[in-house]
């Protein structure tokens, strides 16, 4: 999902940066508020960031014969709310843009929007919906993390199609092509991300049930497991 440095026209680069900035600011405020109220959650915030660091570094092969990586943003969105992942994702993307030439400064806004805004909000919404429909914690977490991952790559495809509409078929023709690269490749990886997020949730629910209960993610009955 990393749009490479210089590969978005100037007006798109600026537009996505302007669109992402308020979310990053909102996220910083919401993290500060949360940590001020619950200082003991600071390390857990680090875990959410670390999870995104690990997963976005894992380039996995996919059935399309190309490689891509998960995003790891679902976990943090469920633990700290969707806005909190915007600044955290921004840090991950900035690290990769500056040191790895992976993504870029001019495309940072667009990449933050897909990975650190759309993904987390999808995760949060899907989780709430699944839980209200009576899904178990594991199923809710799996769906939230997988769909966040997949929708991140769909967003990248939309961004590139807006910047590079097909001369004949326009936006839709481009979208089919970009989504063919990104979204289809991502399907098995999104499933992997869902499985890994359930795995770390299991560990947190087992060893740190107090924190998860404080976040109202699990109720008392579910931590007895």
């Amino acid at each position, binding site marked *: 999902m990393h*749009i*490479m*440095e*210089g*590969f978005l*026209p100037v007006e798109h680069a600026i537009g996505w940066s302007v669109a992402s900035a308020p979310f990053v600011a909102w996220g910083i405020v919401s993290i500060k508020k949360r940590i001020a109220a619950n200082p003991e959650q600071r*390390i*857990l915030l*680090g*875990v959410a*960031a*670390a*999870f995104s*660091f*690990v997963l976005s*570094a894992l*380039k*996995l*092969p*996919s*059935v*399309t*014969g*190309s*490689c*891509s990586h998960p995003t790891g943003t679902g976990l943090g969105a469920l633990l700290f709310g969707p806005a909190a992942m915007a600044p955290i994702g921004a840090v991950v993307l900035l690290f990769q*843009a*500056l040191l*790895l*030439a992976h993504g*870029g*400064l*001019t495309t940072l806004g667009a990449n933050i929007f897909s990975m650190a805004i759309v993904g987390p909000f999808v995760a949060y919404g899907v989780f709430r919906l699944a839980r209200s429909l009576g899904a*178990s*914690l*594991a199923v809710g977490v799996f769906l939230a993390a997988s769909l966040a991952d997949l929708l991140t790559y769909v967003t990248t495809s939309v961004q590139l199609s807006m910047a*590079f*509409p*097909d*001369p004949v078929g326009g936006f839709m023709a481009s979208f089919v*092509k*970009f989504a063919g*690269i*990104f979204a289809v490749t*991502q399907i*098995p990886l999104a*499933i*992997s991300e869902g*499985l*890994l997020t359930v*795995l770390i949730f*299991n*560990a*947190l629910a*087992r*060893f*740190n049930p107090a924190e998860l209960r404080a976040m109202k993610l699990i109720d008392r009955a*579910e931590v*007895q*497991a």
Partner: protein
Amino acid sequence: MSSTQKPTQKRAQNILLILGVIVLALLPLWIVERPAAGPDGEVAIFGGADDQAKNLIGEINPEYQPWFESLIEPASGEIASMLFALQAAIGAGFIGYYIGVGRTREKMRREMEELREELRAAAEQNGKQDQ
């Protein structure tokens, strides 16, 4: 994750989750057919999706010129993979630390409870003897 699950069931679920990820990562290596070698004799397979998107931009709009370059490029593929490994290692180390601390705390809490239980039993015993 219902309240009726026992720790052994949870462990089985975790093992299945890990197996699922491994299978999903290995399966493509088996089922994707190797394409014919390109003009340079290299077989292009399992390249990055990001690179493919870059090439697609070139196809859709051959006139497009990137207007900004990365400030620092990793000097080689090896160095890039070292940095990616470093990124993953730092993250995994932190997660391992947190879970390790939680696990030890849980264990000590349980031992403390057992100890308290023993002390209470001993105190009751003493009380009976005194009467």
